[in-house]
Each structure stands twice: as C-alpha cells, then as structure tokens.
C-alpha cells in the first residue's frame, strides 16, 4: 500500500516542527534500537494496577472509534478479574484490524512503530494482571509485527493473530470471536467482554493507537500528555486524510480544527465540497470550522471516530458518494441479525433511488423510517453507524436532496441519471 510510504514521507517532513508528533519519533520502520533511542527505556516492573488511576488522570480516550475512556475499560477488566469465580486471568488484545477502508493510521503505526504498541500492550497487561496478550491485525502488517514481537524477550508471549479484511472485523466481539473460535463475526453482547470474553476470561480490547499513547503516558506522565490538546480532548491523535488530498497520516492535537488539519495536509480548502469525519460510520460536515473532539457541543465539535477525514470535492455529488458507501456497508453486514441483514440493503436501495434521480417525494421519509427502524437492533453497532451516516447526509445535504427530488443535481459535474 503506497499510502504508508506517502504517509511516512509527510511525517519525515514535519519532523522538525515543535512537538508536532511523538508517535513516530523513532522514524520509519523503527526497530527496537531506534525505538529505545527515541523514547528511552521502559521500566515495566513499576507498572501495576495503580497505573489505571494514571490513565484516568490523563483523560485518554479510545482511538478506535468509540472514544470510550480508556481507564474505565481497564478498571472494568480488573474488576471482572476479581468478580470471576475462579479469579480468571484477563486477556488483553491490541486491536489493529482497522476494517474501515478510509482508515490506515493503525497499519501505519504497526508497521513503523510496532514497539510502541507492544510497550502499551505489555503495560496494559500488567495493569490488569493479564495472562494472555494478543495483537490482532491484517496481512499487510503481520510480518513486521511478528518480527518486532520476536525480537524482544519481554514480548515473547504476545500472540499475533491475523484479521480478515472485512469492515466489521475490528468490532470488539468479532475480534474476540476470531481469536477464541476462528470466526470473525460479532457475538451477542449479553455478557460484557470485561466479564467474559476469550474462553470466558475477562477481556480487554484496545485499539493499537490507544496502546501507543499508553506507552508514552507510562514514560512521560499525565502532565506531559495533557500539554497537547485541550481539557476536553487531551493528547494527540492520528488521522487518516484521504479524498481530494494525498493520502496521509497526520498526528494532530486533540480538539484540532478541521481546516487546520486539512491545510497542513495540503488540501485546497476552496475546493472542498464536504468532509466525511470519522469514517463510514461517521458524519458529513460542510463547515471546516468544526473541531475534532469526542466531547463538546454539537455546534462546535465533530466526533473524530476512527480518525478519518475524507475530503469530497465540490464537483462530486455527495448523495452519490453516500449511496456508494451505504451500498458497501450493506454488503459488509455479517448477515447474522435481521434488522441489519434486511434493513441495510433496503436503505441502500432507497438512497440509490434518491442519488440517481428518482423524484418520488416519499423516498426521504422512507429512508428516515428505515434508519429509525434498524438503530439499536443488532449484535453490534453496524446498523446504528450506517443509520448515523445516512441521517448525517440527509441533514447536511438537505439542499442536494431537494434538488435531486426536483430533477437536478447541485454539483457542477452533476447528473442525476
């Protein structure tokens, strides 16, 4: 994937800028030596359950999409370990499946800074007294990760498992299902993973970027982490920029403005039609004054999701773009749950009709009805995320919808047929 080389070239360029990034401070394809030179040694022995409070003070939230407070996940797993009848030792999984097609930050991180992720996994493992550690990633990063794991004595017990290249492969219960049972499909969530996951053990699934931040927080502390970003969104995050821009991974501060991020990515802001923020389960925005933050008022912030910023030019029809995405999402259903299996293709068909010029005024109401119908009814959040994208498109592109229903398209190259 040429994206990764391009991504690294951009970062090499920015290396000089003050504190511009830390995750790739060891350079590209960093081996153990470069890693230790850049970040210093890690005293793993000093890490225990008290580190969970350190994470709480840091305010680190998950970088996999849900932005859940990371310390809470560790605390729940630690508690799950205590509650378990036989005091089962937990399992920690570094999730690098990255099923989102618009996201490539996790692959980039695993290929160029695997040791930071490994550090984070070992730290999280010690904090919850885990007995099993896994890194879960796709084919492109497997060799590098396996080699990195094999090159360290302290990482010997980490098992590296390959994830399939499907959209839902990164869903937490699908990760657990694949590792435990060989099937990368989501499972019913009646019992929390923190209580019972892999082979009935309390299981903690953390995104690989989250683990990288954990590794740096363990070294430099809470104060250091919080100097970047804001109170409501401390630290930095990786974003995958694509669309009307050279595909690249940027490390940006929390609460960063979208226009600033796109400008440093070299995007011609004057030609931006819309930006898809978060990925295929994210939101469309027209204004680039929004800030990326998991918390904050809806008129100021957009949730970063999987850290995706996909730029649609002002000549592309946003409804056609959304219809293509929803068609893809429908096809990526695990086909286990009725509302998803039947609801998503139904939504795709209606959105296709609107995108390609069917003037029936009832289409919008039908699409909204279907969106409301599938939400919260499935083993995973695939239907919810899809409904969110559709809802966002209908809201942000309401003018385009009106135009389409009236027989025209607002895009310069637009054709509704």
């Amino acid at each position, binding site marked *: 994937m040429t994206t990764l080389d391009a991504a690294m070239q951009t970062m090499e360029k920015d290396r000089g800028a003050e504190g511009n990034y830390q995750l790739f401070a060891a350079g590209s394809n960093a081996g153990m030596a470069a890693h230790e030179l850049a970040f210093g040694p890690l005293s793993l022995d000093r890490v225990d359950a008290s580190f969970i409070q350190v994470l709480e003070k840091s305010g680190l939230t998950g970088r996999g999409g849900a932005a*859940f407070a990371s310390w*809470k*996940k560790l605390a*729940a*797993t630690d508690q799950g370990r205590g509650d378990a009848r036989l005091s089962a030792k937990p399992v920690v999984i570094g999730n690098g499946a990255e099923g989102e097609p618009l996201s490539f930050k996790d692959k980039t991180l695993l290929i160029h800074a695997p040791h930071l992720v490994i550090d984070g996994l070992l730290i999280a493992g010690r904090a919850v007294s885990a007995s099993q550690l896994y890194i879960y990633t796709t084919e492109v990063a497997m060799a590098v990760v396996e080699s990195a794991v094999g090159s360290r004595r302290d990482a010997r017990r980490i098992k590296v498992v390959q994830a399939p290249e499907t959209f839902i492969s990164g869903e*937490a*219960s699908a990760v657990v299902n694949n590792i435990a049972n060989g099937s990368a499909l*989501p*499972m*019913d*969530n*009646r*019992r*929390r*993973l*923190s209580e019972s996951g892999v082979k009935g053990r309390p299981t903690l699934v953390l995104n690989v970027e989250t683990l990288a931040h954990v590794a740096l927080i363990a070294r430099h502390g809470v104060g250091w982490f919080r100097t970047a970003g804001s109170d409501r969104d401390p630290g930095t995050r990786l974003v995958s920029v694509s669309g009307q821009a050279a595909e690249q991974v940027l490390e940006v501060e929390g609460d960063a403005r979208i226009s600033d991020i796109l400008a440093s990515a070299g995007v011609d802001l004057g030609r931006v039609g819309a930006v898809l923020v978060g990925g295929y389960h994210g939101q469309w925005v027209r204004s680039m004054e929004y800030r990326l933050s998991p918390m904050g008022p809806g008129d100021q912030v957009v949730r970063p999701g999987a850290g995706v910023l996909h730029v649609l030019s002002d000549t592309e029809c946003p409804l056609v773009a959304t219809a293509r995405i929803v068609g893809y999402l429908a096809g990526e259903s695990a086909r*286990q*749950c*009725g*509302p998803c299996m*039947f*609801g998503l293709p*139904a939504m795709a068909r209606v959105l296709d009709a609107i995108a390609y010029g069917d003037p029936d005024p009832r289409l919008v109401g039908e699409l909204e009805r279907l969106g*409301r*119908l599938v*939400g*919260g*009814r*499935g*083993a995973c959040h695939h239907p919810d995320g899809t409904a969110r994208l559709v809802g966002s498109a209908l809201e942000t592109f309401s003018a385009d919808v009106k135009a389409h229903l009236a027989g025209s398209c607002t895009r310069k190259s637009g054709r509704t047929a």
Partner: protein
Amino acid sequence: MSETLHIDWIKCDGRGLCVELLPEVLGRDDWGYPVARWGSTGDRTNVAIGASDLEAARDAAKLCPKLALTLSTSQPGKNH
C-alpha cells in the same frame, strides 16, 4: 433493578411468538423481527419489562423457537 428481556439478534429469526405474547411491549418490523415499542428512546435489545408483563415475558423466553430471549433481573450493559 428492573426485569429486562434480552434479545439475542443473532439467534432471532423474527418468528413472532414473543410479539403475540407481549403486544404492548413489542411490535414487528417489515421483516418480522421484534421492535420494542418505545422506539429509539429505550433499549431495544434489553427491553424493559414491567411487573404486569413478567409472566408473559417468561412464556416468551420459554417458547421462543430459536431460544433467542433471556429474561434477567440485572441490567446488562454495552461491551467495554
């Protein structure tokens, strides 16, 4: 601590027995699957069951042809 009826969507095949037994609580969607009646405001997977519906909910869990329903006292949470 209320009673909740958990729907295992992977097992559910929308046969509709639960909807018949709990008509005030569940409706059926376009493809036969149960929809909790208070829509998007309440939990549609761990459906709250009032005291008057408890008996019927037990029957629904017992009769479901796919064993997709579980009635429990504690409130199951989202995955962490």
